[in-house]
């Protein structure tokens, strides 16, 4: 059985002015992570990749779906269970410079764990444990202990946070863009550190927007767009033989040293690349409902269970293959269901959320062993 199982997780955020809108950040996302496996979760901004990381860390509640860790549903965990859970699952986040309180010394992140998890250890035992954790991330204790965050480099700060996770019996590390802010020369060291930890059996959920980093480190890859898994499978297969048009367009957009962009077809951000010859529908379901900018879509879609528009048909392609912008803006007064008009009707909102949860994203089919791709919605 897999260590972490994410089972049809959906997350709906309230959004828009007055909290009147609903936005599905994740739609029926399912995948799992085995012991000692690195799974790269790749998506552009707004794809919901960080939301998923936060859900696994229990920082954000799910709207529907379940997350199992070692067979236990973590959504249901209470105090004691959560305490044990955090012993095994820890996260490290993007910006090392804001992960630390600048007023305190950086090694305070270790001290804060001590009363919670290591109150039984003597001073010597604690020091020894600290030293071994620092050695694991190849830091010299003299270089990093008793220093303020600004005295450490970004790479050292991130490694300290990984060391903090290693102090606990961590089995799964949620690495949310942990090397995006680092310089190229130090970034590789942190990356290689993760490879080393993986070899010792640490499972890693590696969240990134950088395809080359994901490819470098991961065993399996999950491609996420607007909360929907479009493709997943073994990394060499997903990168070597991408099936979904979106994956392909992402890959061609990656700047490479020895190949110019011109060799590849232009990117179509909204993924309207024909699949298998047939023109697929614009597959981006704009789940941003009751958004001012897409107000016209709302009116057009009609119907009750599908009040939000699934088909954001874009007008002519933009001159330079750029991401879509908001359409014409209707006046606020024209909007029949402007947020404030619906403010009282809690019933409506519950229904709306239910509809979002019940709405199924494109189905994943197995195109070869261990390689799944989303089938575009036809008709």
């Amino acid at each position, binding site marked *: 059985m897999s260590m972490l199982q994410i089972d049809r997780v959906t997350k709906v955020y309230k959004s828009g002015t007055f909290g009147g809108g609903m936005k599905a950040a994740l739609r029926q996302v399912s995948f799992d992570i085995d012991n000692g496996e690195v799974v790269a979760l790749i998506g552009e901004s707004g794809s919901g990749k960080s939301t998923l990381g936060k859900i696994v860390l229990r920082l954000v509640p799910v709207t529907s779906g379940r997350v199992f860790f070692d067979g236990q549903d973590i959504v249901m965990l209470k105090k004691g269970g959560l305490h044990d859970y955090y012993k095994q699952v820890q996260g490290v986040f993007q910006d090392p410079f804001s992960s630390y309180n600048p007023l305190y010394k950086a090694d305070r992140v270790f001290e804060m764990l001590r009363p919670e998890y290591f109150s039984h250890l003597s001073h010597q035992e604690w020091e020894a444990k600290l030293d071994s954790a620092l050695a694991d991330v190849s830091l010299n204790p003299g270089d990093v202990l008793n220093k303020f965050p600004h005295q450490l480099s970004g790479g050292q700060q991130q490694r300290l946070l990984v060391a903090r996770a290693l102090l606990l019996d961590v089995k799964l590390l949620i690495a949310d863009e942990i090397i995006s802010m680092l310089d190229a020369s130090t970034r590789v060291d942190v990356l290689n550190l993760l490879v080393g930890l993986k070899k010792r059996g640490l499972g890693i959920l590696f969240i990134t927007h950088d395809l*080359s980093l994901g490819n*470098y480190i991961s065993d399996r890859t999950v491609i996420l767009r607007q909360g929907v898994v479009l493709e997943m499978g073994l990394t060499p297969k997903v990168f070597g033989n991408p099936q979904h048009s979106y994956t392909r367009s992402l890959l061609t957009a990656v700047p490479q040293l020895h190949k110019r962009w011109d060799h590849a077809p232009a990117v179509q951000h909204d993924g309207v690349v024909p699949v298998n010859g047939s023109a697929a529908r614009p597959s981006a379901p704009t789940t941003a409902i009751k958004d001012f900018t897409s107000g016209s879509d709302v009116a057009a879609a009609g119907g009750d269970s599908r009040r939000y528009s699934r088909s954001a048909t874009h007008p002519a392609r933009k001159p330079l293959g*750029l991401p879509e912008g908001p359409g014409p*803006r209707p006046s606020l007064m024209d909007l029949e269901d402007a947020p404030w008009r619906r403010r009282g009707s809690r019933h409506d909102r519950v229904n709306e959320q239910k509809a979002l949860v019940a709405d199924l994203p494109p189905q994943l089919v197995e195109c070869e062993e261990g390689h799944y791709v989303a089938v575009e919605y036809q008709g």
Partner: protein
Amino acid sequence: MSLKVDNLRIAYRTLHGDVGAVDGVSFSIQDGEIMGLAGESGCGKSTLGNSLIFMEGRMKHGGGTVELDGKTLPIGDSRAMNQYRMRDVSIIPQYAMSALNPTKKIGTLAADLLKSRGVRYKSVLEELKRRIALVGLPDNVVDMYPFELSGGMRQRATMVLSTMLNPSLLIADEVTSALDVSTQRAVGEMLMEFRDRQFVKSMIVITHDLSVLAQIADSILVMYAGKLAEKADARTVVDNPLHPYTQLLLGSLPEVGLRYEDAALVGIPGRPPSLLHPPSGCRFRARCPFAFDKCAEEPPFLELQRGHQVACWKVMQDMAKEPAVQGQNASR
């Protein structure tokens, strides 16, 4: 010759003394050239870019000249510099996404900017709208507030605003860094388009991402700790770098298709030196695997091959040893 920078020195005034962020930098850019300026954070690349248009109060012009289209820019004198801003030199600032005033509509912002240059908004509105359409923004973007636009759209709006008056030199500071790959590509191609359409004559693209520069730049200048390390055309720097720092930097970039089992990448050990009291000799010496006795002296920044300037004793020594091999490389 569009831009000619000669022995430029810029320092930051701090309580502990002057920090020489740009220390004796000389280079030139031709008309129609996109020059990439690369390096790690803290190497002085943004300082160099900013100094060409606006010196903050804590920045000090320590010497050197900047010549643009034959005119010497008074970069140390902010007031005298004002007449050159936007018309001759313009910048897309580092955090272009948050560079727009949130309380003003894009059009109002453009009008304000133009008014400060003594240009009537109405007279350029037509061209402005044409360019807005060119970068793929909706027509009514001039009537929108910055918060109504996404990050990538704001980035593009800033690009259009910066180049309204067709400056001779555009400084693009980390314009692609905070963007997704597909937006990154769009913005990169747009920069090239701006050059091709001659909205700007030449461009300095500042970034830490060498792979983006490999896509859009004609030449690449690599900086390390306030000094120039290497300059050559983009293909040469990427395919045939000479300076050990450039080689290591390129070696640490993961490329798509590379997996750790196949080839483990290596980073560069250590950190860049503090510029408050910079080390003597070659500044990369402490991290350089090839360092030898000679490196205690400061290496000159010399043209060792045609159009390929490097500051490294090791490279000079190798060249002296086997000129034949190097000659072959140069002719390739």
